[in-house]
């Protein structure tokens, strides 16, 4: 059974239709890249998949391990195994980094009928994973994302992913706002979590990230539809030639 199946998905926000029939199948162990020009619907896709309020699905379905997600709220989908690494992670004043992580992990455990984490053990675990991502201790004591640089925010997203062990991870323009070094660290963090059990959707505008997180499949999204699918070389193609030709060909076809 496929891990994530997106079937003929149509979605709109308010009165504006954005997704016009997306079809995509992601199996465990696969990394799919979704590229596209601005306004193609990339972020909308990530929000619709994760269940954000304000988006209406007018047609189609989303299945996670064969189960439809349409009736599930955002937190239910999260506990079912979906993770979204935000493009613009929001600030939570006064909410300590460690406390937040604990709350998220405990929510998952409670759902599975297990006990909450042992405090000390958890702190050790978090510190270990944080070190791998170059996240210092004092950053964990600060309020979530408050005053964090772009790179710090993205690293904190990947730390959360490492602790929550999702089955499907959607990375929404994880490279935006990152310099060369930050990009490397974040990519390493993501790659270290690749495995035969997890599926990933990497959304990006530029090819650069995909040299570090090498995808199995590349899809080009334009005007709410996938107009072309290929392997990693498609990304290089886009970098060389841009989106325009591809879009024109799609229209002609």
């Amino acid at each position: 059974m496929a891990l994530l199946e997106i079937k003929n998905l149509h979605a709109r926000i308010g009165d504006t239709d954005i997704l016009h029939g997306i079809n995509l199948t992601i199996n465990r162990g696969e990394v799919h890249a979704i590229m596209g020009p601005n306004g193609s619907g990339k972020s909308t896709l990530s929000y619709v998949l994760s269940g954000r309020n304000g988006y209406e699905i007018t047609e189609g379905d989303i299945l996670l391990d064969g189960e439809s997600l349409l009736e599930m709220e955002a937190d239910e989908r999260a506990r079912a195994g979906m993770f979204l690494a935000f493009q613009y992670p929001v600030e939570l004043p006064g909410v300590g980094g460690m406390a937040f992580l604990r709350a998220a992990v405990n929510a998952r455990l409670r759902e599975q009928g297990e006990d909450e984490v042992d405090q000390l053990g958890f702190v050790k675990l978090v510190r270990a994973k944080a070190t791998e991502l170059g996240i210092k201790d004092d950053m964990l004591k600060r309020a979530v994302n408050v005053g964090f640089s772009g790179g710090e925010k993205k690293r904190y997203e990947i730390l959360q992913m490492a602790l929550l062990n999702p089955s499907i991870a959607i990375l929404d323009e994880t490279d935006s706002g990152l310099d060369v070094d930050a990009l490397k660290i974040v990519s390493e963090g993501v790659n270290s979590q690749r495995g035969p059990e997890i599926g990933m959707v990497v959304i990006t505008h530029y090819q650069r990230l995909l040299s570090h997180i090498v995808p199995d499949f590349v899809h080009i999204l334009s005007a709410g539809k996938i107009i072309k699918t290929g392997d990693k070389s498609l990304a290089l193609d886009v970098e060389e030639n841009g989106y325009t030709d591809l879009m024109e060909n799609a229209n002609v076809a």
Partner: protein
Amino acid sequence: MVATTETIAAVEDATGSYKYGFVTDIETEKAPKGLNEDVIRFISAKKDEPEWMLEWRLKAYRYWQKMPTPNWAKLNIAPIDYQDIYFYAAPKSAEGPKSLDEVDPELLRTYEKLGIPLNEQKMLAGVAVDAVFDSVSVATTFREELSKVGVIFCPISEAIREYPDLVRRYMGSVVPVSDNYFSALNCAVFTDGSFVYIPKGVRCPMELSTYFRINEQNTGQFERTLIIAEDSSYVSYLEGCTAPQRDENQLHAAVVELVTMDDAEIKYSTVQNWYPGDETGKGGIYNFVTKRGACRGDRSKISWTQVETGSAITWKYPSCVLSGKDSVGEFYSVAVTNGAQQADTGTKMIHLGQGSRSTIISKGISAGKSQNTYRGLVEMNKGAEGARNFTQCDSLLVGDQCGAHTVPYIVSRNPSAKIEHEATTSRISEDQLFYCLQRGMTEEDAVSLIVNGFCKEVMKELPMEFAVEAQKLIGISLEGSVG
């Protein structure tokens, strides 16, 4: 809260001997409804008070009769009929519930959430408790330990009889009879409260909690508390309880007076969750409290920390008069309103002494259709050379049906005194909620997490046990307010 269970048990046990002066034939004598000089004489007689105390009460009563009812706050108060209130020992309503099965399931749900053990639940819900408890008298052991260091902690009625000099010297010196309408009323009819005295140089060995002091059910309405800290002493006092407390009596008008001498410190923490009434506010408690601290000594300090949820109407302004040189006043508050509640709360920092400092951190959270107002006064008088104040008032609005208001009064009569005041308004944004939801937290958890983050600066001033309970309490009082 294991300690609490033991305490309640001990309290039950010690009831007979502790309630000195309350004999069993009390059941047959009750003051009738209403207020007049006879009722006051009755109360004074029941308490076996000396003549001077009765005179004090009567003087206050006569003063009160001449005062106009206050109505300046942004509150909608239906006029209170003082002749329709029992001022002494309201009768128990019919009989209490026979078991937890008869208790309002909403109330039980809240107890569960707060992690209150079953026996304690019974006690709080008014179910008659069998004497199955451990007979270790925690209260008695406790009193022994305190008396070893000379700390006095007893009901105020006992103090009036046993320590009249101390009481006469200090009672009414911080909140005079004439101060306001409800404090005058309190002076006339108060029936219970705490008296605490910490001698020179003593650091009170434990946190004093009102659990340890007997409360006759249904007379907690007009409490009067007096805490005196002599030179270089310290005490931390906890008031209140997180479990929602219903009460027969709607009107609560307490007076709390604190006095600190040179280098002394009093830390007064309150977690209050009075019954807020139904969604329209009907049947809720009216909580009008006058709390004031006099930092008389040099380098003395008084901190007020409060978490207020509950009450249909809250009207309280814990204040500090900073007379001593380099004295310090602090006010940390979280006030949550939901449903149809109204809160008008804040503080007054009156700077008189050179070098005096005050810090005010107020966090107001409004949800539902409630109205939450911060009202504060910072006054720098001529003698307050080099004094400092810092005030931060933040309001968090949950939903678009409620209101959050800030009304600070700033008066400065000394150029070397510095005042800094800041107020902000915000809400829990959709983005913040979604971020937490996407991490698997339920909406309830998310709101609780974000709100507690908002209140963090205040919460860390609370003594540990209170802080944990208070956090849960805030989460519960905001239930159903989002989405």
